[in-house]
């Protein structure tokens, strides 16, 4: 599991394919919205968290699209499936690497959001908690569907089409909590929803990934 995660991160650090695209996308979106709407502080309180999580979701697709697709080059996926690591370990390793990459993109774009929208949470710990829970949920869904669509010819199109509807409950919960956190309120029920979502979908993904990969 750790070997796969380290390999994916090492490969990404060397090529920076997904990282560059994802960072550039998230920064450009945040800047464009800031200049296009020049929102007031009341408006930012209303839609700021939505903008932030939409940016994370779309930037995440760029990271997640590459996750299993990079294994198609030279038939590396076959070599991984034929090796003695379990499909679950392969999946979790990839999910950990995706999580690290996506979380890094979020950490990079968070100060951009704070600077251009003049919005900083009163406490950072609750914001990081919701970012961890929400990002893991996005990652686990995205990685599973990345495995599912890896052999499809139109996978770049299919992955977002399949993944975004699944992400809706996570995004709504994460946006609600983030709105509360930015306003300095309690996080609310959404945290328990995200924890349950993470546990359920991680378990389902680990159980079914062998069927997804081998048939």
């Amino acid at each position, binding site marked *: 599991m750790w070997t796969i995660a380290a390999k994916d991160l090492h490969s990404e650090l060397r090529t920076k394919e997904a990282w560059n695209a994802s960072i550039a996308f998230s920064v450009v979106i945040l800047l464009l919205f800031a200049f296009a709407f020049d929102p007031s502080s009341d408006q930012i309180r209303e839609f700021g968290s939505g903008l932030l999580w939409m940016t994370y979701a779309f930037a995440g697709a760029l990271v997640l699209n590459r996750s299993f697709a990079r294994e198609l080059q*030279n*038939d590396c996926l*076959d070599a991984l499936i034929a090796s003695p690591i379990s499909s679950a370990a392969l999946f979790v390793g990839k999910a950990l690497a995706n999580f690290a990459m996506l979380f890094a993109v979020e950490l990079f774009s968070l100060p951009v959001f704070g600077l251009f929208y003049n919005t900083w949470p009163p406490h950072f710990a609750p914001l990081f908690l919701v970012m961890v829970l929400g990002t893991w949920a996005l990652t686990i869904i995205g990685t599973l569907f990345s495995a599912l669509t890896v052999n499809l010819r139109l996978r770049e199109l299919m992955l977002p089409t399949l993944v975004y509807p699944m992400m809706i409950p996570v995004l709504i919960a994460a946006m609600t909590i983030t709105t509360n956190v930015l306003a300095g309120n309690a996080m609310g029920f959404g945290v328990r929803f995200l924890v349950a979502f993470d546990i359920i979908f991680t378990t389902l993904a680990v159980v079914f990934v062998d069927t997804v990969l*081998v048939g």
Partner: protein
Amino acid sequence: MNALEISDVWKYYGDFPALREVALNIEPGSTMALLGRNGAGKTTLLRIIAGLSRPSRGSIKIQGADAREQSTRQRIGVLGHGIALYDELSAIENLTLFGKLYGLPDPRNRADEMLERVGLSRVRDGLAREFSRGMRQRLAVGRAFLHDPEVLLLDEPFTALDDRAIAVLQSMIQSMRDRGRTIIMSTHQLREALDLASHVALLQRGQIVHTGERTQQMLDDTGWLYRTYGDN
């Protein structure tokens, strides 16, 4: 115990049966050439043996265990159509990665030994994408043999290899045969296959139409097998 037991294996792609009622036993230490024309089902059968795909019906036992068991995969080496190497990693990083995945005690040391063996130790830190085609092929051979597998699966192993890679592969296959390892290779290159094989199996439209020991007659007349058991 047989090295490989294939019992009544069927594989469907939609309604099309790519493999039909395939049954085959392979003894430990034998070298089996899986022969057949393009589309006969050789690659499909090898993929099922390697655990890369599941049969629609039937079972495959490797040394008595299921092909998808982790302990079974530990004992199998696969050299398929692709080189299965990461272009953005160096030669030593590629082999060390697979050494770790196969749970070798000292993967980096073993990777160094293998690079020496396939003649790539001078470029151990070079990225795989910067290698020539022949060097990449030799690195792929090194990866397949890295964990000293007890059962080796080779899918068209000599196709598109350069002279040096063929020499490296032949010497490694010979060394495995000498140590009593089981080798199964699918190919339609009869001459190379029959030179190495102790047994042959002929696949035709997803069915095994002949299996048995490789005879001198097959060596003398490589077309004999297809003329006698195939439909030309």
